[in-house]
């Protein structure tokens, strides 16, 4: 597994994750367990139906956003 680890940026910080991790895997792995979570991959909103299929690549950026922060 070690050789297939890639580095991505999650919410502004570097994170080592298995290569080809899907968004769903990252959510599970990084404990972002909220159905209202917004996910952005390289600045683009990712529809929840694509969470299982879209995988990250080296250098990608992921934003997990809990948009229900009031106001």
């Amino acid at each position, binding site marked *: 597994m070690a050789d297939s680890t890639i580095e991505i940026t999650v919410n502004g910080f570097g994170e080592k994750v298995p290569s080809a991790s899907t968004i769903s895997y990252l959510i599970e792995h990084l404990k972002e367990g*909220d*159905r209202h979570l917004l996910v952005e991959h390289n600045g683009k909103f990712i*529809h929840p139906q694509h969470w299982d299929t879209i995988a990250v690549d080296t250098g990608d950026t992921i934003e997990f956003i809990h*948009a229900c922060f*009031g*106001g």
Partner: protein
Amino acid sequence: MSKHDILNSRAPRIDAAEKVTGRSQYLDDLTRPNMLYGALLQSPVAHGKIVKLDTTRAMALPGVVEIVTAKEAGDILFGVSPARYDETVFAVDRVRYVGEEIAAVAAEDIETAMEAVGLIDLEIEELPTVLDMEAALTPGAQELFERYSGNVTAEVFQDFGDVEKERGKADKVYTDHLLSQMQDAAFMEPHGCIAEIDHRGHLTLTTSTQSPHYVQRIVAMVLGLPLSKVRVVKPCVGGGFGPKAAASNLELAVCLLAMRTGRPVKSVYSREQVFLRSRARHQFLHKMELGVKNDGTLVYVDHHATLDGGAYSSFGIATVYYAGSLLGGPYHLPNMRYHGVRVCTNKPACGAQRGHGGVIARALLESLLDTAAEDMGMDPVELRLKNVMSTGETTCNDLNMSSLGMRECLEAVRDKSDWDNKRKDLNADEGEGIGAACGFFVSGAGYPIYRSQTWHSTVTVQLSEVGGGAIVRSAAAEIGQGSDTVLAMIAAEELGILLDNVRVQSGDTDFSVDLGAYSSRQTLMMGHAVRDAAINARNKVAEVLADVFGGPAERFEFKGGYVGVTEGDFDFEKVRTDFIKEHRGFTDNPDEGERFTFKEASRLAFNKTGTIVGCGEYKPPPLGGRFKGAAVGTSPAYGCSAQISEVNVDLETGKVDLARVAMSHDCGYAINRTQVEGQMQGNFLMGLGEALFEEVKFDELGRTVNANLAEYKIPTSLDVPPLDPIVIESNEPNGPYGAKEVGEGGIMPAIPAIMNAVYHATGVRFRELPLNPERVLKAIQSLHSEGGLSFPSDAKCERIIQLLEKRKSDQ
């Protein structure tokens, strides 16, 4: 009868007498010795590159002490959500709206500061402007930011239930769109602040904010100060309604000037600057398709929204989220699909305003419900009653209605308004109409703005060492809504003392962490914390009493300023005699009766254990979403409201008058009944203004043309009908004493109830807001014209919706 002594009463606000005598101090009432005055240079153009910024001439003006620009302030990004930090203190090379901050001057007096602003040499090379949603979304449009491709600052897709699969179950489908205008919160007190720094580098910022806590963090982050050396204090604040909930460029600029000059610096916005700062209500364009069964059961909502966010993100990512998710209740709606896009344009940035994100979406849905009811021959109130949710149910998007008096609210206004008769008897030929609507809103947010496990509210209740009073200390933000009074009432209730004996010190980051006054969170979250803190303090006293007098601590009962026992007896004679002897008879105890006073009890506890401080804290518990186990949901609780408005439309002039309104709100439990009513009435006023008058207007160069309270009309006493609110109490299990929000929910039904009444009166289903005389008259005329009902924005709305649909299909 209330089970409480103080809660649920009509206790006058604890700050009322100070306010009514003019003694309360708001920011602009404060000065500091040796204080400088700050003034801002703001962009005169909507979009451009700064090619020259030279402060030499301005600096040479006698009386000018310091001038700062992006060169001094740096380029650290800030904003509201860390995922959308996109602002700098001053424009770095580029300006994106008229009013954007470019430089700030500190001078010995305000006139000199303003004169110096005029002497700063500024040259801007103009860039093409993007001034509305269509311009922003059109392929190939000028982009405001490299990072926001296609000028989209936030996009949300949500799919709850299965709209595609269930669509076929609907017998009828209704579709419409609604375009609102950008609005201003128009609080009475313009923003202002004073920053001062001491010789040890401790900065104190006194500012008219809704959230000292967030301002503290942003100031420290942007200006590179340790958090421990930044104190933010909120004086009396003259209203906020959302736009004062985030740190501002003004606050940062004034702090920077204070840091560089070593002197206190004050700056206060003019009313025009309040409009230019904005951070108020977005412009929304919603399109909705509502599927309904023949019996009136709702099947699905398919929803698209475009938001014009102005130049920066502010709260926008939450706005676009709430614009979709707040349709989840209060009706049974098994399937809901949403696509929301927030674009940036070269206008002042929009943010959160009362009813954040949900107001116009609600207006359109409630309007569609009326369309459906009419088409199916159902009474609009009946249709709603058929679909309302009840306590304990969960919406398709996981919002748990842990209490929901929606049915009670709606039935109450139906009866109060004499709906059944009025609906039949009002005369549309004379412009009379009546309309109903419901709404609901969050009671606090599940998450703080930045990603953190932080407590959302902490507080201490300290008993005064002598005298038996209590001081409640926190960073909670009293901005006029009455939170200080609520906190004092809760503390007094739990300590069993009189309200007059509780002092509240709030709005100070030195006292505690509290996220502030937004998203209707203060009563629920700080209410929990202060209750726990007061109980904690009381228990400490009870334990000492148990030690001294024997028996379990629980047998001591605190009520009305006295301490009694529920069982057994206790002889406090010696304790009392000791107190009397210690100061030659001065007991500070007016009651020498037979009962043991709280004063004596707390004094005894102090003598035995030292200062008595009770602590309390609150953060929302995991709220049990259904996605992969327990998760934090949107809010711990939801308030709900119903309104029925009766209008008179002058068919000759198009002027809409509110004749009557019946309003109800479920606040769970009214900690202070007068204040609950006041919030309901104020919510209605803002909704009425937004429905009928309010619109920030721009010229073709992106300049705000009505940045004043004459041309930006808000309701006066003559525009508002008598308001007699009905308070519904459903006892919220997640709220302190059963309480939940009342600060924002009441605006939700206000706009659609008026729209539905105007429809009833005129037959015009409006697709544009506000319903000002010109718009109403033209719409009525078009209704009777050959082409039928049309609105000037119809074609543009259609194009925007197409652009959005294309975006969706490109996904």
